[in-house]
């Protein structure tokens, strides 16, 4: 992650339209917060939304702080399950940390005293006692989900104006920004993130409210399926996070692990362990999990003799080996296709049916739009969100959609660069915020003071 944030050599020397406003783009999500200056190619600050609480009740933010197994941290997340904010007090502090730690207060300094090696509780205190408001010189462009509530939108401008002292503010829909970034004003945006998968139709830069569909079948749900897979595997996979392992020796595939486990005076909390386990699962998701490509129907297409046509044919294919931090390893064959299948096809075999599948959502979203624009939507499908980077995801989506709408041109636009897919909405915001002409769109502090927080509803449609 840090390499993303440190890539600062590309800072633009000339800014679009000539108006250097040093606007900050903030794109908060369920799993991570993306923040950076408008006009740059990638967010300089990429911080986890998870934060740690010490036994004394102090909050620790950022990747540098929350992965310490000795700190006895309780790990929490201020975002609700649908990607909107639940705990505003924490969210405000967390976002402020994401911005100030890397953008506004960030100075290259001697490594002996640049803060990274300091006792972190001091840094937090210092930030709190800092009297000035952190963003007095930076207009702020924030992204929001298509289903954000009015209350939350007003709270956003309140935080920006009152707590951070921003001179100007704008709230943009992340699906619209993703569509703009792909060069489209009309598009069907399929966004699969950590907590939520959504399908939103955008027409001429405005979201169509009726077409907004969301579902919890996203990245975190896939992680859950991986846990179940580990649980059911033969032999059962023991999920031991890196911090527990002191040393290991190589073992054969399927053999029990030969590792020495570290002992802690105070054992780390369950939520901390879950956070660390999630890192392994993420790695597993990136390297082993495969989405079935959808040729010859879905994975569990049944055949008359019993059994599953596609799933069974995969059994003869070579698998992939994955080694756990404790050294145990095994081959994952056809099973690696099973975890993501439920995102596309409702399963009748187990408890996977936690929400509408992507296919259901595309249908529902599509049917809620006007007849005239439907062909345009199908010809302009924009795929964004980090979970769409799973191997084979876009191929499967393509095959499902062509089957669903035969005879119509379906064209899926998915950025090839991983950064563009992960930071799609942030990058759209970065371009918008850096436009010289955009400064007339901002809601200024004066306007906010005159009309109050409700102005955000009138201006940011």
């Amino acid at each position, binding site marked *: 992650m840090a390499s993303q944030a440190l890539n600062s050599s590309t800072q633009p020397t*000339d800014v679009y339209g000539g108006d250097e406003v040093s606007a900050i783009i903030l794109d908060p999500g369920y799993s991570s917060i993306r923040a950076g200056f408008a006009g740059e190619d990638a967010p300089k600050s990429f911080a986890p939304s998870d934060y740690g609480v010490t036994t004394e009740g102090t909050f620790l933010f950022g990747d540098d702080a929350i992965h310490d197994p000795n700190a006895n941290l309780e790990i929490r997340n201020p975002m609700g399950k649908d990607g909107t904010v639940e705990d505003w007090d924490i969210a405000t502090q967390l976002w402020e940390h994401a911005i100030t730690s890397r953008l506004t207060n960030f100075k290259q300094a001697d490594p002996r005293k640049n803060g990274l090696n300091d006792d972190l509780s001091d840094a937090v205190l210092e930030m709190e006692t800092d009297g000035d408001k952190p963003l007095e010189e930076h207009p702020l462009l924030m992204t929001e989900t298509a289903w954000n509530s009015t209350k939350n939108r007003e709270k956003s401008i309140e935080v920006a104006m009152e707590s951070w002292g921003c001179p100007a503010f704008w709230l943009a829909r992340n699906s619209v920004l993703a569509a703009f970034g792909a060069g489209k*004003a009309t598009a069907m945006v399929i966004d699969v993130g950590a907590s939520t998968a959504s399908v939103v139709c955008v027409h001429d830069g405005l979201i169509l409210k009726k077409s907004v569909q969301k579902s919890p079948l996203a990245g975190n749900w896939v992680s859950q399926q991986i846990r179940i897979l580990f649980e059911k595997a033969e032999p059962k996979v023991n999920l031991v996070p890196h911090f527990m392992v002191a040393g290991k020796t190589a073992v054969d595939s399927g053999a029990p692990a030969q590792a020495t486990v570290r002992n802690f005076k105070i054992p780390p909390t369950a939520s901390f362990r879950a956070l660390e386990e999630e890192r392994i699962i993420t790695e597993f998701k990136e390297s082993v999990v495969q989405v079935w490509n959808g040729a010859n129907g879905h994975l569990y297409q049944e055949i008359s003799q019993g059994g599953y046509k596609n799933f069974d044919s995969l059994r003869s294919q070579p698998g992939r080996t994955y080694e756990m931090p404790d050294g145990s390893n095994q081959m994952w064959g056809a099973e690696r296709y099973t975890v993501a299948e439920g995102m596309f096809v409702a399963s009748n075999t187990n408890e996977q049916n936690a929400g509408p599948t992507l296919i259901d959502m595309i249908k529902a979203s599509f049917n809620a739009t006007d007849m005239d624009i439907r062909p345009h939507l199908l010809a302009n499908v924009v795929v964004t969100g980090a979970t769409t980077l799973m191997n084979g995801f876009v191929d499967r989506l393509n095959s499902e959609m062509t089957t669903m709408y035969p005879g119509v041109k379906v064209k899926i636009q998915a950025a090839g660069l991983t950064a563009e897919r992960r930071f799609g909405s942030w990058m759209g915001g970065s371009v918008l915020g850096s436009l010289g002409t955009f400064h007339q769109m901002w809601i200024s502090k004066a306007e906010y003071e005159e009309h109050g927080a409700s102005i955000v509803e009138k201006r940011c449609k």
Partner: protein
Amino acid sequence: MSQSGVSLSGDCVSKFNELKLNKKIKYIIYKLTDDYKEIVIEEASEDGDWEAFREKLVSATQKNKAGKVGKGPRYAVYDFSYELASGEGTRSKITFIAWSPDDAGIQPKMIYASSKDALKRALNGLAAEFQANDEDDIEYQSVLAKVSKGLA
């Protein structure tokens, strides 16, 4: 106003009205100025050859923020005529095209997409509209099918 705040230069609309009323001009290509502040007319032509028009869109360029010239998006209005398949005569539809090649940079694409509304809303009397993102999208046959809704 568009979401990007980009404005139109004065002759954008008047030229369009000329196309609409005098029926001499066949197409107008619009572009954004290099500082991305204003939409201006790049070319207005009386030549009705679709291939020449298409070639102009395909070879359009735009400077990105580093000053490098890459492929560029455009807006275009084309007075598109076709014969009805049923033999009921000729129809002509003024068509708005938002051309944004997939291999153009994210910056120009974003700005064109977010500024499209400013131009489109100012032009009254558009009969059809579509977005085109690769060269296939602006092949004569595929445009004909889109504009005529299969009636040609």
